[in-house]
Each structure stands twice: as C-alpha cells, then as structure tokens.
C-alpha cells in the first residue's frame, strides 16, 4: 500500500508534470484563465491519463515495440473522444469554455509521456496510481495558476467579484500573463528545491 501511495505522491511533488517535468505547458497556458476552466481541464486530463495508463500497461506485452506509438495514440484518442462526448452531453458550457483544448489532450505530452516512460514497463496497479498522481498533480498545478490568474487578472473567484471597485491587472489574463505567472511559479518551486 505504501508503494502505491509513493507512486501517487510522485506525480504531485517530486515529478509534478507542470512544475518539475514542464510537460504539457501549451494547454496549461491556454486554459488557465479561470478556476472553472482549470478544474475542467484537469479532471478531463486526469481521466484520460488514468484510462490510457491502465489500458496501455495491461497491453504492454501484446503491443509490438516498433508500432507502440500508433497504438498508444489510438488508445489515448479514444479516451479523449469519450471525454469530449460526455462533456458535450452533460456540461455543454464547460465544453464551450475549453473549446479546442479538450481534443488537444490527445497530443498532450503528459499523457503520451507517461505511457512511454512508465505505463509500458510497469504493472497495471502501479500505472493506475502513476496516472492518478500525475493527473492530480496536473490539476493542482492548473488550479494554482488559474486561481492566481483569475483573482489578479479578472478580479473574480469562480466568476464572482471579490472586491467591488478593484481594478484587476488585465495583462495577467492574457497569454503574456500566463507565461509570467508560470515562469514565476517555476522559479519559486526551483528555489524551494535548491534550498533542501
């Protein structure tokens, strides 16, 4: 049990996909404008990561090494399409807010990265906890970035105004603001790591 917990925690801290591995930064930059978007993207990516990690790990002895990448892509794309259809049916507003970035989870480097670096040589349970940890780590990172950006860039939390008359720093809402926030957070986490 302790081992599974270790696999799970690794994705949140030691190998956090956003702040340590710096994978999948493109969707992170694009959707982290509000907390709802960040959460939606995080949950969708977590589901895909979990599903693809488990399936790919389960088939690791069947998939021939030379055609593994196309096999992985088919599995990942299937899960992404499942998420997209479900989202359209049950939460059309979120689907519209995330727009093109849901289909683009297919090419999110975290998902393929975990399949190639971990799931294809690990047991199903280990891969499950790895995917879960990575997904939660990605979601937490998105929540942190989008929280900072929504509060300072739009002056709201979950769409509600916090302080009346507060003039937000608009640039934080723009792509340039996303780069600034992510850069500062990366620097901050590196500082903590070096101190240890």
């Amino acid at each position, binding site marked *: 049990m302790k081992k599974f917990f270790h696999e799970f925690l690794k994705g949140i801290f030691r190998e956090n996909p956003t702040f340590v591995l710096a994978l999948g930064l493109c969707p992170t930059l694009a959707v982290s*404008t*509000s907390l709802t978007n960040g959460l939606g993207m995080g949950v969708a990516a977590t589901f895909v990561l979990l599903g693809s990690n488990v399936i790919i790990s389960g*088939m690791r002895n*069947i*998939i*021939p090494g*030379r*055609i593994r990448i*196309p*096999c992985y892509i*088919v*599995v990942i*794309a*299937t899960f992404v*399409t*499942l998420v997209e*259809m*479900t989202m*359209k*049916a*049950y939460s*059309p507003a979120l689907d*519209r*807010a995330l*727009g093109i970035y849901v289909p683009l989870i297919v090419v999110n480097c975290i998902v393929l990265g975990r399949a190639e670096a971990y799931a294809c040589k690990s047991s199903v349970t280990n891969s499950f906890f790895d995917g879960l940890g990575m997904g939660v780590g990605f979601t937490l990172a998105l929540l942190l970035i989008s929280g900072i950006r*929504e509060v300072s*860039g*739009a*002056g*709201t939390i979950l769409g509600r105004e916090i302080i009346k008359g507060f003039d*937000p720093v*608009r640039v934080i*809402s*723009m792509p340039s603001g996303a780069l600034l926030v992510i850069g500062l957070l990366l620097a901050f986490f590196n500082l903590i790591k070096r101190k240890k």
Partner: protein
Amino acid sequence: MKEMVRYGVTLSLICGIAAASLAAVNLMTKSRIIAQAQAEEGTALKDVLPQATRFEPVKKDGETLYYKAFDAQGNWTAVAFTADQKGYSSVIQTMAGMSRDGVISAIKVLSQNETPGLGSGVTSPDFCGQFSGKAIDGLAEVSAITGATISSKAVIDSVKNKAQEIKELIRNEG
C-alpha cells in the same frame, strides 16, 4: 513479412475495440447532446424575443437561415437569427431578435472564448443592452468596451451585417 502481418493485426484489433467503444458511447450520448443543443437554442430565442410565443425555423439547404417569431395571435411579428464573426481570440456567436421593420429587440452572446475580464465583457448586460431598440443604421452608436475594441466590433459588425442580410430576405415575404 511475418512481423508485418502481426503488426497489422495488432493495430487493427486495437482500432476495432476503440471504434466499438466509441460507437457505444456515441449511441448513449447522441440524443442527449442534440437535446442540450435544442434546449439552449430555445432559451436563447426566448431571451432575445420574450414576447413571441412560437418560433419557426426557416431552412435552406439544411441550414437554419433565421427563425420566424409569432405572437400569441399567430401573427408573424419578428425574426431571430444568429450571427458570428472572429473576435480577438475566438469566433463570437451572437443571437439577435429583430422586428420585421429592422429594429433590434435584444441580443445574446451564445458562445465566445475572448480574454476573460476584457473581451468576455461582450456578454455583459451593459454592452448587450445597448443593442435593444436600435435600428440597423443606429448600431454604429453602440459604444465598444474599453480595452476590448476588437471583440466589441466583431459583435456589432456581425449583428449589423446579418441583420441587413435578413432584412433583404424577408422584405418580399408576406
């Protein structure tokens, strides 16, 4: 050669399973997706033309050109239409209601993905409310949102152009 066959079979097998599961989920969600879209359309129509009691889509080549709106007595009084144009970072889709002589009753932004806090202001009542009661030529008076000129202009221009187009279309109809 033997390897090639094995690769082909494995990949087709995986694709087959993927296709089957997608087909199953599609079957489960299809009707719900269509229902969601219709429900959304219905509320949007009601929002832009609250007085109308019945809407009838006018289609051409399978696409809805505009909706005829009828009042409680069954008279055709107004039309509703959707207009879209590229804004700053997304295509902004707007629904607008217009009386038959070309006066906008209300507009509603259906979908946009503009910069939050700036361009997303096009959904605010302060902006959308300006359209109400303006004739097509009067739409130039709608003032753009500070810091979101491109998003505002996209909404104004798309509604204006589409309104003109629809007005021409319905002029000859009874």
